[in-house]
């Protein structure tokens, strides 16, 4: 009873404190405003780092005109039109409206924005970078396109509570223990790049778990591997490898950027090299802690108490699967996969891929079913789709086999249900 009362008081307090500011913000953008081309150019690559066009563009839709559905555990949201169309886009937004949306998650009308728009990260973006983004967006072609209505069970009023609990507005303080490049990398990763939106696990209310920053999450049904000390990468990433992967979408020792990461790499191919390098410096340092974790784990008995990384230390354990499944999976691997992955045809060796070592079979299943395809009209890593060639039983055996043979890890428990999920997610066999 006291608990309920206390909760009610907290919520009332929170609502009072975080009630969205009333009314629209001050003014429209100055009519006929012009923008410094250098600023627009900077906004263009900043927008690429923010991956803005990926969410704010519908399939085959006009860039930035919104309408892309984003499914969340709470319902479906539609990304908005951020072209400068005055009626359906942000054409009437002033620079300060835009800054407020980025930093506080409040739209021009004063309403709270759903945090699917990652203002928990964008709040860290410096004012002059926000200005550059604004200049870039305001100089795009206006597209008249009404954003479909959201279908979500969370009322906007509840966002105030969410914000009070999880939203920490304001810039990041630089970390004096690290150099400028590392700090730049953290600024981009935690801020505009919003890497944690996929690579950090979320709690029941959809907020990133602060204490598990970059510890691995999900994106569109794909697994977004951990980028911190629990990175499942079989070979530790170097700074150069991360930078190459981010800009080219491929690194020979780790593989191809697939799924939700493919458009991220495509966007990063357009940003200044120094920016991608800074991201790489920061991520590599976050992962480097793994070397120490691994050393500690090796110092203990395998899987014994005190092992620093349960996942890594678990690798020595009995990881047997049903012998018949192993046998079938082995035969399938040798006949359908090894030609490329084990035969010098430039398919990545599967013991280099996080798809066999990570905590979930989602990526291995999705890549096997739908392959990897370069962006329309571009070069890139490719793998053919095996949907249809493999029936469900064969796919389950193959995945179970690859896990033990190349992941050297205990069997996944959820292969069958992940296969069903991946098939439902892409029923029409859309392979690109």
């Amino acid at each position, binding site marked *: 009873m006291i608990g309920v009362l206390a909760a009610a008081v907290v919520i009332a307090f929170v609502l009072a404190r975080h009630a969205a500011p009333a009314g629209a913000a001050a003014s429209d953008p100055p009519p006929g405003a012009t923008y410094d081309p250098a600023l627009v150019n900077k906004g263009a690559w900043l927008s690429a780092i923010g991956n803005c066009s990926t969410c704010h563009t519908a399939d085959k839709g006009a860039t930035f005109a919104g309408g892309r559905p984003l499914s969340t555990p709470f319902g479906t949201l539609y990304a908005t039109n951020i072209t400068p169309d005055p009626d359906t886009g942000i054409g009437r937004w002033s620079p300060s409206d835009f800054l407020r949306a980025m930093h506080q998650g409040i739209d021009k009308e004063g309403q709270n924005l759903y945090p699917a728009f990652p203002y928990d990260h964008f709040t860290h973006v410096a004012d002059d970078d926000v200005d550059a983004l604004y200049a870039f967006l305001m100089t795009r072609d206006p597209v008249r396109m009404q954003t479909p209505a959201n279908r979500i069970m969370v009322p906007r009023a509840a966002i105030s509570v969410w914000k009070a609990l999880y939203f920490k507005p304001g810039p990041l303080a630089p970390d004096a223990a690290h150099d400028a490049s590392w700090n730049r990398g953290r600024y981009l990763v935690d801020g505009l790049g919003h890497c944690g939106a996929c690579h950090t696990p979320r709690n029941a209310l959809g907020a990133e778990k602060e204490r598990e920053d970059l510890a691995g999450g999900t994106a569109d049904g794909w697994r977004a591997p951990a980028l911190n000390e629990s990175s499942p990468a079989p070979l530790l990433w170097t700074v150069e490898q991360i930078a190459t992967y981010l800009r080219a979408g491929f690194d020979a020792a780790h593989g191809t950027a697939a799924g939700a990461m493919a458009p991220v790499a495509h966007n990063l191919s357009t940003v200044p090299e120094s920016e991608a390098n800074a991201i790489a410096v920061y991520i590599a340092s976050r992962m480097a802690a793994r070397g120490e974790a691994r050393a500690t784990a090796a110092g203990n008995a395998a899987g014994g108490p005190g092992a620093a990384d349960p996942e890594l230390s678990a690798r020595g354990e009995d990881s047997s699967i049903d012998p018949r499944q192993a046998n079938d999976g082995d035969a399938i691997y040798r006949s359908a996969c090894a030609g490329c992955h084990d035969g010098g045809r430039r398919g990545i060796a599967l013991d280099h891929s996080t798809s066999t070592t990570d905590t979930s079979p989602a990526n291995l299943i999705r890549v096997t079913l739908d*392959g990897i395809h370069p962006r329309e009209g571009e070069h890139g890593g*490719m793998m*053919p789709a095996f949907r*249809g060639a493999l029936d469900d039983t064969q796919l389950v055996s193959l995945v179970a086999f690859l896990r033990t043979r190349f992941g050297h890890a205990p069997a996944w428990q959820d292969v069958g249900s992940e296969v069903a999920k991946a098939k439902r997610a892409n029923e029409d066999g859309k392979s*690109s």
Partner: protein
Amino acid sequence: MITLKVNDRAHEIDADPKTPLLYVLRNELGLNGAKFGCGLGQCGACTVMVDGEAVFSCLTPILLLQGRAIKTLEGLGTAQRPGPLQQAFIDEQAAQCGYCIAGMIMRAQALLERNPSPTDEEIRAHMNPALCRCGTHLRILRAVRRASKTMQGATQDGKKA
């Protein structure tokens, strides 16, 4: 020995289980509809149907196919009595050199069996993995649309296509 069920006929195949289905179809069974194009699953010339889905026969080892229903171009009709989809391709003159067409037809067949009246958007998305170097895509799309209509008409008349 692996038993392959091709166009409703069972064949005992004595070949290395790694052998791609395409080689068995062409070299053992004399079914030359499916073509070798790229050998990498990137062009679609080798497409056949397995359990109702379009697959690249150049990449599919026969090991995977024991007892599963394989359908090839030859299973849709003959030169004398082409099936409705084949007839639609003829009517629209959708082939130029024709090398991709067997694969195109089998990929389209898989779509129409699952979705008898696809939208243009669905046809385009589904046919995307199949390439035609001559550039007859627009005729191919017309042929698929035409077949969608004729096949539905035939079904409604009680004459199953």
